């Protein structure tokens, strides 16, 4: 591991000033991904700016009904928060489906959104990887890719984003607020992650040195009837091979409102807007749900070893929407 400087910061302006002054510096939150990547040499920061003690560790219900989540709130505290559990149960479920109790106590919301892919080639510095070393190639496309992307990938990179939390936040239209040395900004989470294209090493729309300060969920009554479902290769403590965050409101047998996002299928949490368009105003039945899944998955471009994900996601969508429809009319 490269030697590095360490500074603990207590205010946001101090934090962004340090990163502004040193392009080789990185923010350290829980460290559950960054410290691991430093051990393997994927990350080689010259300086760590420890943001864990910034005053960004609260979840607040705002007067307009939105929920404002501080960037240093731990995964555990987010999942356990009564207003999250009441208003956005799929978000609690998504967070609890990720990692282990130990890691959830350490990991932060801001860090979760900016964690790196778990593609094995990205993690192995002896292998080419366009995301890690631009232009070096993507061995996953001809190699081990059974858990890689089926949507929105390119011939340069087929890695997936590993977050569960981000899938539920994307379904519920979260907005990311950040601070830079030049001032604050915000971006919808759906737009935070850049298209893969020819530049898989450019992952987010955040300006250099930006610090995520909050993630805000607008009020969404439909989210009270929501679920996150994660499919993985063992029952617990594993990354998804496919997941859905879904919320559904049904009146008189018709879909009045819906939110749907997919995990583990793309380089970002995947908002299923084509599916949502099919669902709104349509009969809340298995036929509609399958048609909605097909509309979204029409854009899927599976590789030789991950075609199963298309079937998996279709089945997941139908099963989860069917269950939510039953619960909505109960």
């Amino acid at each position: 591991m490269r030697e590095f400087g360490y500074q603990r910061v207590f205010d946001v302006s101090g934090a962004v000033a340090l990163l502004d002054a040193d392009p080789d510096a990185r923010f350290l939150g829980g460290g559950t991904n960054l410290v691991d990547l430093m051990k393997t040499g994927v990350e080689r920061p010259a300086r760590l700016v420890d943001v864990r003690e910034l005053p960004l560790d609260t979840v607040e219900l705002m007067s307009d009904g939105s929920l404002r989540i501080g960037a240093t709130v731990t995964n555990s505290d987010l999942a356990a928060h009564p207003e999250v559990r009441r208003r956005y149960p799929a978000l609690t479920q998504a967070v609890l489906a990720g990692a282990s109790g130990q890691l959830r106590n350490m990991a932060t919301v801001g860090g979760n959104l900016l964690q790196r892919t778990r593609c094995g080639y990205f993690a192995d510095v002896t292998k080419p990887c366009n995301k890690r070393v631009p232009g070096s190639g993507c061995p996953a496309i001809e190699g081990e890719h059974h858990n890689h992307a089926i949507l929105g990938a390119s011939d340069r990179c087929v890695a997936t984003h590993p977050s569960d939390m981000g899938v539920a936040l994307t379904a519920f239209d979260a907005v990311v607020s950040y601070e830079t040395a030049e001032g604050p900004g915000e971006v919808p989470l759906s737009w935070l992650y850049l298209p893969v294209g020819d530049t898989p090493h450019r992952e987010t729309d955040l300006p250099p040195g930006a610090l995520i300060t909050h993630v805000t969920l607008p009020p969404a009554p439909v989210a009270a009837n929501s679920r996150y479902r994660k499919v993985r290769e063992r029952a617990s403590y594993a990354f998804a091979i496919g997941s859905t965050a879904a919320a559904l409101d049904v009146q008189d047998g018709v879909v009045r409102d819906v939110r749907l996002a997919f995990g583990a299928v793309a380089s970002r949490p995947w908002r299923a807007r084509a599916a949502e368009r099919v669902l709104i105003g349509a009969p809340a039945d298995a036929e509609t749900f399958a048609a909605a899944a097909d509309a979204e998955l029409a854009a899927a471009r599976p590789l030789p070893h991950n075609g199963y994900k298309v079937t998996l996601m279709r089945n997941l969508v139908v099963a989860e929407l069917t269950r939510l429809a039953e619960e909505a009319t109960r």
Partner: protein
Amino acid sequence: MAPATPSTHSAISLNINGEKHALSVDHRTTLLDALRERLDMTGTKKGCDQGQCGACTVLLDGRRAVSCLQLAVAAEGREITTIEGMATGDQLHPVQKAFLDLDGYQCGYCTPGQICSAIAVIEEHAAGWPSAVTDDVRPEAGPPPLSADEIRERMSGNLCRCGAYVSIVEAVARAAAAETRTVTSADLPQTEEAAA
């Protein structure tokens, strides 16, 4: 202008099991390595060193964490509790006792991490935290019973290569049940009621 080369070492003080330990660390030192290699506290075990096995579990400010991904320098100012701090004198912690009584281990290498994790699991459950196998996570649904499924899910961050899981689940259940009985039994200190 290029930033000044930052110092790569710090003199820190770690609060471990209620005692302060002063040491100078290379910033690359994890809490796990500081405990084992610098402070000779070898109860905390190194398994994978990648946050995947849970052998290095300790409590930070009362919450379980993997010490292999925790930088020592970033642990300054926090209350660190290791397996060495769980017993009170010769009196084992109830979770330690349950692991002994029910053979919650074979080789014992993962056991300190299992016990630290289990102590926190019982507290997290008592605080009403749901888990990934809790069907209804809404607060109105109330806390789920600490069933074997709940214990397995909550303990899934601690791997046991010997496969002692059956006894581990029993030990956690027994310790949790004992704790619940203590809380609800009539022999609780009556100070608050007496004062009221």
